[in-house]
């Protein structure tokens, strides 16, 4: 087949992924006058960012003037169990207020205080009310604003185009092979810098809050191109996901419900979180229901309720209650806000939650409690990047947002990820723009034909051309998801992780025999799901191996056989990388910057 007429699109910078981070990065590049393109797997404005509900964390100090960026930094580090990239956490906290105000300037809707300032709400792990929000649909608003602004800047968006492979010229990035879903044809993007902003890979689990797009595409592409994946074992299980009905199992119930007064109860009606307060947080957490109620009424002397502890603590508590037989009928616990707040308040502050439960589960949250349980929610780990430039070890390859790792350490605080999108989206855009501007030497003409011939063979001849399908993509995918749920979940151990590694290895060999029943090239979603499964298996492999080898418990990675945190042996980052012999792991020490948080800042 002759590929001389293959569509080629040239940009200075190409952003892969049109979520909060991707669009923000593209806006920054376009602002520097560079030709910028975004490719997105789904339609513009429908990225996973729209599902974010709680808010965006920034120390604006509008509701509590005692807040400042140093406390935000401290909270982030405490939440991440000090495994965060210190420099990234510092930049994140320092620049968050500016990025939020900038978004407001671009037209984002926010709930306001009576004086007209951006209102902020409480959230787990944050010392002060820090979350700028609009109802409980902040993510949707952020992406709407970014989308509208992006259109205003005239950035080219190539929708429903899946990134397949990075093209390297002497180990330097020079382009990307993409696949147009609508026509089923390849496209070659020639570019000087690529920013990966493809999000995480939560779809490798069965019970997850993530959407269809989250199949670890960027992680897989980076891994294959030689980049390193950092701290992959740290996968966050959000404590409150819906558990009923089965079709919505895993969908998020925002932490904002707890921030606005919701409490967790077991089947005996007990507020069990009081039994699970870790020593480290004891001085900041209320130890009686009376004190917690006072805090809710606004008493600044009272301490926060234990429902607002960090997500890993709450998720484990819920799981323990369920395993002890004190769970709700469908395997979760009860989240009750009906008995705590009047109906009007709930409908005004949590309208999306109200509608979500009404429409998806026919439950009126102003009258009865919700059933919730842990769900795979976020990847703290991801592609390793330099803290200042956001560049990976592959020159010209950058990453930001959830697919970049290291910022959150061992556990992410709620709402820090929306801020991460804006702060590091902007940073990465700036760096990538600089890199592209300084790339004077044009890379040699990419040999289109041989490149695409191999892609054609890999994808079309092997998959569409095969008459006998011995393996089905849905079967392999379901098996992988079930195994990740059972073996690499909230509670892990040596035996389970080892089994997971073996299962994934078997699935990878079975995957080589997968076929598709849809033989048409145009809009072949079955083929796309095969490509996604390919990426997901690589990501799952990295996670299972990393989890097996970290023999300690830290943050969201909890080992039943190594329950203590082991700073002596494991205050370091795990790195998974590809070799000719498959996946390999190594460790690097945590870089503590000169700037250390003070112990008492208020």
């Amino acid at each position, binding site marked *: 087949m002759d590929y001389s007429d293959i569509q080629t699109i040239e940009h200075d910078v190409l952003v892969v992924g049109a979520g909060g981070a991707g669009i923000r990065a593209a806006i920054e590049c376009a602002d520097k006058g560079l030709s910028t393109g975004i490719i997105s797997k789904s*339609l513009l404005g*429908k990225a996973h960012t729209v599902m974010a509900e709680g808010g965006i964390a920034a120390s604006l100090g509008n509701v509590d003037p005692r807040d400042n960026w140093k406390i935000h930094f401290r909270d982030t580090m405490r939440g991440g169990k000090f495994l965060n990239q210190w420099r990234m956490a510092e930049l994140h906290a320092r620049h968050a207020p500016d990025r939020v105000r900038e978004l407001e300037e671009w037209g984002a809707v926010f*709930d306001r205080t009576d004086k007209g300032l951006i209102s902020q709400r409480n959230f787990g792990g944050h010392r002060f009310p820090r979350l700028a929000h609009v109802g409980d*649909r902040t993510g949707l608003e952020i992406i709407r604003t970014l989308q509208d602004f992006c259109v205003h800047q005239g950035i080219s968006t190539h929708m429903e185009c899946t990134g397949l492979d990075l093209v390297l010229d002497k180990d330097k990035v020079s382009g990307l092979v993409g696949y147009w879903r609508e026509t089923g044809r390849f496209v070659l993007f020639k570019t000087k810098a690529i920013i990966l902003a493809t999000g995480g890979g939560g779809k490798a689990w069965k019970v997850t809050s993530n959407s269809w797009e989250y199949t670890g595409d960027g992680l897989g592409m980076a891994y294959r191109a030689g980049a390193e994946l950092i701290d992959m074992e740290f996968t966050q299980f959000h404590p409150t996901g819906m558990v009923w009905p*089965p079709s919505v199992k895993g969908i998020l119930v925002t932490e904002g419900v707890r921030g606005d007064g919701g409490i967790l109860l077991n089947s005996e009606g007990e507020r069990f979180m009081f039994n699970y307060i870790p020593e480290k947080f004891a001085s900041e957490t209320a130890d009686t229901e009376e004190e917690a109620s006072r805090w809710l009424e606004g008493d600044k002397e009272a301490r926060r309720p234990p429902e607002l502890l960090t997500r890993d603590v709450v998720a484990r508590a819920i799981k323990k209650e369920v395993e002890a037989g004190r769970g709700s009928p469908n395997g979760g616990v009860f989240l009750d806000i009906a008995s705590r707040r009047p109906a009007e308040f709930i409908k005004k502050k949590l309208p*999306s939650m109200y509608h979500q439960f009404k429409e998806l589960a026919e439950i009126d949250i102003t009258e009865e409690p919700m059933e919730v349980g842990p769900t795979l929610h976020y990847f703290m780990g991801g592609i390793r990047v330099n803290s200042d430039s956001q560049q990976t070890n592959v020159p010209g390859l950058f990453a930001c947002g959830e697919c970049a790792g290291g910022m959150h350490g061992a556990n992410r605080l709620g709402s820090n990820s929306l801020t991460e999108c804006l702060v590091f989206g902007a940073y990465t855009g700036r760096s990538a723009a600089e890199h592209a501007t300084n790339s004077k030497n044009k890379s040699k003409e990419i040999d289109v034909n041989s490149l695409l011939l191999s892609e054609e063979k890999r994808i079309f001849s092997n998959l569409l051309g095969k008459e006998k399908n011995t393996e089905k993509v*849905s079967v392999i995918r379901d098996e992988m998801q079930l195994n990740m749920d059972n073996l690499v979940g909230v509670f892990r151990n040596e035996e389970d992780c080892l089994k997971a590694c073996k299962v994934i290895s078997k699935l990878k060999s079975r995957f080589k025999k997968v076929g598709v*029943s849809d033989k048409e*090239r*145009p809009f072949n979603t079955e083929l796309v799901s095969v490509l996604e499964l390919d990426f997901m298996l690589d990501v799952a492999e990295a996670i299972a191996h990393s989890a097996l080898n970290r023999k300690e418990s830290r943050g969201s990675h909890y080992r039943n056989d190594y329950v203590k945190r082991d700073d002596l042996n494991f205050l370091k980052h795990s790195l998974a990388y590809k070799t000719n012999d498959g996946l390999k792991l190594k460790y690097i020490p945590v870089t503590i910057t000169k700037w250390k948080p003070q112990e008492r800042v208020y």
Partner: protein
Amino acid sequence: MEAPRKSLLKLKKKQIAIKVKGYRPTKDSEPYFQEYKIPLKPDMVVLDALNYIKDNIDGSLTYRWSCRMGVCGSCGSNVNGKPKLTCETFIDDVGDNLTVEPMARFPIIKDLVVDIDSFMTKLKDVKPWIINETEKPIEKGENLQTPEQVDLYKQQSMCINCMLCYSACPVVGTEDDFIGPAALALSYRYNMDSRDQGEKERLKITSSEEGVYGCSWIGECTSVCPKNVDPAIAIQKLKLTGSLQTIKELLLPKFVK
């Protein structure tokens, strides 16, 4: 363990037949119905049915979806003749003769996937961004906006771009140039935003045959909207402000910039 929904399990069946409209661009000259029989579980939504078919019966069934919780707006289809989000439509509620077709009034690419290029262009045409003379530097803090000011446009800011309103609007079906409910509601949202100064610019675009004057207030867009955006009322209000603006310009051209 299973718990029945509050409303009775209306369809007391274990299996259900579902008709899905299929269209394969490489071999079909027009769409046709395909029938599938699937097991019916309590609280199944139409999207679950489509996913079941794709995973177990016919891997080539093609449709869009993403969040499965009614917030991304990807899964719009015609269910039993009505524009709906498949992830939010319980099979119990739509009854026995379940028919799923692509959204009406859009060109069909394949099966339930439709061509939305014209919609994306129309969204762009109404200038959906803050237009003001000078940008405020972020060091000065955020623009102040009271909760009352936010309420003026909050409803129209809820749009998830699901396009069900375009599918429901008969004008969209007959006039290709009609800007349409969602885009016009979006322009209203920016007009009413106290931080924006671009109302006049946008009114020039929307006060036209292709804009608000193409609408004769059928109101179907508002009744199918899953997010209560009420595009119909936004359009009528644009007619009002648009006409007043035109009159002002005719009578007092000197005083109107």
